[in-house]
């Protein structure tokens, strides 16, 4: 099969190839001609990829680090990273919508990603979340303390750095850990039913999207509103994750399956509540020497201003 395809390619190097993969992934056609995006041949079983771009890489085996799905060329070439940004505006919007409306039976990875995980969504959603949390937190503190005569507004710009560290660590380290753990548990059945690293990062990135409007709405100074919002966001976002990972995990022993899912949900909850506590509560972090500490705790306790 490989010789046939190679002969066809040598006859007409510009042609794009269509391949039917044997695994249960959907077929993917070789994409973009020009622009440096090499064609990726989908399919879990094939390890050797045919690179259709005109650069001097020619045909080479892709690295198997990422589950052998979309990688073209070596990791030192630009085209390798370009293959992770092979999405259109409508695709990104569709994935964002999918992360906000999890339906049981719709696995985010199978239904929306369709073996084309991208890094655009996770990265820019994390960046937006960092700034939305920091800015909304700053605004909420301002609105809470606005009436106090001794209060002087401060932009608290260092919180952006803290938010960035926390959110990016969550969005990258947790998927690494989870993927490593799932791969270890799957053992030799890695190709069947397992998710590649990129897909794991992708689903975690898109699941964080719901927190962006939530963090903006947290400016509303009523505690019950904030707690309702956080519960709703955690349910939606957590269910996207659970629906995605449950089919993979349920083949494992009962204890491990439940423990994995519980850990996923617990970490997600920790992130949400941690952000809320740090960025949106005023009473906790006012220094003791500040004479406005007492009135602030009083205003925090009241629900109307």
């Amino acid at each position, binding site marked *: 099969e490989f010789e046939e395809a190679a002969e066809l390619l040598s006859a007409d190097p510009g042609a794009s190839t269509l391949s039917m993969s044997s695994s249960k992934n959907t077929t993917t056609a070789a994409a973009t001609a020009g*622009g440096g995006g090499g064609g990726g041949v989908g399919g879990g079983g094939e390890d050797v990829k045919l690179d259709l771009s005109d650069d001097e890489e020619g045909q080479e085996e892709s690295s198997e680090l990422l589950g052998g799905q979309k990688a073209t060329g070596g990791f030192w070439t630009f085209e390798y990273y370009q293959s992770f940004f092979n*999405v259109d505006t*409508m695709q990104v919007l569709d994935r964002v919508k999918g992360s906000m409306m999890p339906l049981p039976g719709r696995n985010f990875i199978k239904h929306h990603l369709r073996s084309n995980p991208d890094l655009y969504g996770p990265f*820019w959603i994390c960046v937006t979340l960092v*700034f939305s949390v920091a800015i909304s937190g700053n605004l909420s503190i301002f609105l809470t303390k606005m009436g106090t005569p001794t209060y002087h*507004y401060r*932009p*608290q710009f260092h919180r952006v750095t803290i938010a960035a560290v926390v959110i990016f660590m969550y969005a990258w380290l947790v998927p690494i850990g989870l993927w490593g753990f799932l791969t270890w548990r799957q053992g030799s059945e890695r190709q069947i039913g397992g998710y590649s690293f990129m897909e794991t990062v992708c689903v975690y990135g898109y699941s964080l999207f719901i927190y962006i409007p939530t963090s903006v709405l947290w400016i509303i100074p009523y505690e019950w509103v904030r707690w309702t919002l956080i519960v709703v966001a955690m349910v939606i976002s957590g269910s996207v994750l659970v629906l995605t990972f449950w089919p993979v995990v349920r083949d494992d022993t009962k204890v491990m399956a439940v423990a994995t899912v519980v850990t996923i949900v617990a970490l997600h909850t920790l992130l949400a509540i941690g952000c809320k506590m740090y960025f949106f509560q005023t009473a906790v972090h006012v220094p003791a020497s500040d004479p406005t500490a007492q009135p602030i705790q009083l205003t925090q306790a009241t629900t109307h201003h």
Partner: protein
Amino acid sequence: MAAAEEASRPFAGLSDVSISEDIPVEGDISVPVGSTRRDDEFSTLDEPVKETILRDLRAVGNKFIHVLYPKRSTALLRDWDLWGPLLLCVTLALLLQGGAADSDDQGGPQFAEVFVIVWFGSIIITLNSKLLGGTISFFQSLCVLGYCIMPLTAAMAVCRIVLVGGSGTVSFAVRLAVVSVSFGWSTFASTAFLADSQPPNRKALVVYPVFLFYFVIGWMILTFSPSQ
């Protein structure tokens, strides 16, 4: 190999030729210098220093004018330079100093933070645009993004002047209006320059980070509060 041998055959006979020492050989070997060579433009060693500086200043000023009246022109892209962005970044970072207790970590952005946000933000947006298949070059994109910070820097200067008069609600409203207008202007100007180089079905994906970038810079300007 065969071609080389074939080429050397016409000259085979010349290897025997030599000039005897009786015949005087004299002449003048010199390279004729053309009077209308384009090298004159590139040979800038002899010009006065003022001329050199003024040329660069004129180029930078020309680009500022292009940002003020953004049309779809290629002037910013063709002769990119990074002097303008550097100047604007330093000015913005300096104007953002002297804020509320900036020795305390609750204050506004430090000088280095402004630099990091502007330059790393521009680099990341450029990389994003190139990864999505844009045809613009790296430094051209940095140039455009840097020059389009100019309306926001002007807004910062206006805000500081307004804050001298007081920091009440009126001044906040004025500052909000000024920053919003300049933010819109920056985003519009940069998309006017960058739009043509993007693949058509990904334009929004490229414009959104630019929007976020200028929004964050606008936020830093708006929340600047003077120390008391």
